[in-house]
């Protein structure tokens, strides 16, 4: 009973945190939806840890709790992979930005040099 209280409370606090972060626009919609989806699965499980016992038996896992642990680790790995992918994407974007910036600066310098030349010819 005590354990259920601890896990259930943790789930609810996580839920409140994510909803609040979403409300304050600190989380993009796509991540917010992901975490809300996870919590919708996790909270019932935290209240009734034996919920997955039948599924676990079917898969040959000793108890529902170990199945949840296993799935949790797999999920966290996937999240890590996704975040690495996002970071790679961001790096590619800043690279493009930096290139654009350098090219613009080169263009401006060239324009200025051309103008200075014109002025010195005139004068």
């Amino acid at each position, binding site marked *: 009973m005590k354990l259920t209280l601890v896990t259930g409370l943790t789930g609810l606090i996580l839920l409140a945190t994510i909803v609040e972060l*979403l*409300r*304050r626009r600190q989380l*993009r*919609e796509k991540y917010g939806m992901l975490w809300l989806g996870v919590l919708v699965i996790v909270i019932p499980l935290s209240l009734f840890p034996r919920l997955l016992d039948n599924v676990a038996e079917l898969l040959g896992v000793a108890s529902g709790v170990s199945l949840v642990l296993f799935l949790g680790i797999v999920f966290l790995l996937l999240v890590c992979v996704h975040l690495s992918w996002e970071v790679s994407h961001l790096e590619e*974007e800043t690279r493009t930005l930096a290139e654009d910036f350098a090219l613009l600066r080169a263009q401006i310098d060239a324009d200025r040099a051309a103008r200075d030349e014109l002025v010195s010819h005139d004068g």
Partner: protein
Amino acid sequence: MVNGKRVLIIIPALNESGSIAEVVHEVRGELPGVDVLVVDDGSTDRTAAVAAAAGARVAKLPYNLGVGGAMRCGYRYARDHDYDVAIQIDADGQHDPRYVPKLVDQLDETDLVIGARFAGEGDYNVRGPRRWAMVMLSGVLSRVAHTKLTDTTSGFRAANRRVIDMFATWYPVEYLGDTVETLVHTARRGYKIRQVPVAMRKRMAGTPSHSPAKAMIYLGRAFAVLTLALIRR
């Protein structure tokens, strides 16, 4: 100038080289005194070059930011260049620039004017889940905005200075954020929203962004986006 106001037409475009020239020509023909800014959102075709050749100013984003990203860029341009009115028009030719003066007229008493289908003019039909999504969105958003809105995802909108200032600093890039969330946000901050009935045409070239198969997913996401917009502040 339209009715004594400096007007900027903002056209977000992604791979629309087939229609952008005609759209720009039509706008400049119908509305001689307005400026046109095409925001090319990382197109892989010749959209930017074609638009510039047609006489538009072009802001070329280095990579795709989505309609919301392109629009914020456009509103920043409008704010920095001191326009009275900024009007969004799609690059696919669905919006008829002849309605622009009608939208601008409304801006005297209103802050944001939407050119809306299903409001009596034109015969643009949508069915199935996409229609249900539209009904849900217009029902809820009409209530939030205290005015009848029949076409909440319309990309045909006119904003006055107050709204330009707000959109220049805040404009979501998330899915449906550029339409649904901006409406909620604008209404919540006390700006006045109105719609003006317009007829819309078939797109001139290219492919429509929504296939019937995606309609159901669209409904679900519309619901999620709307819920989120309503709980956000």
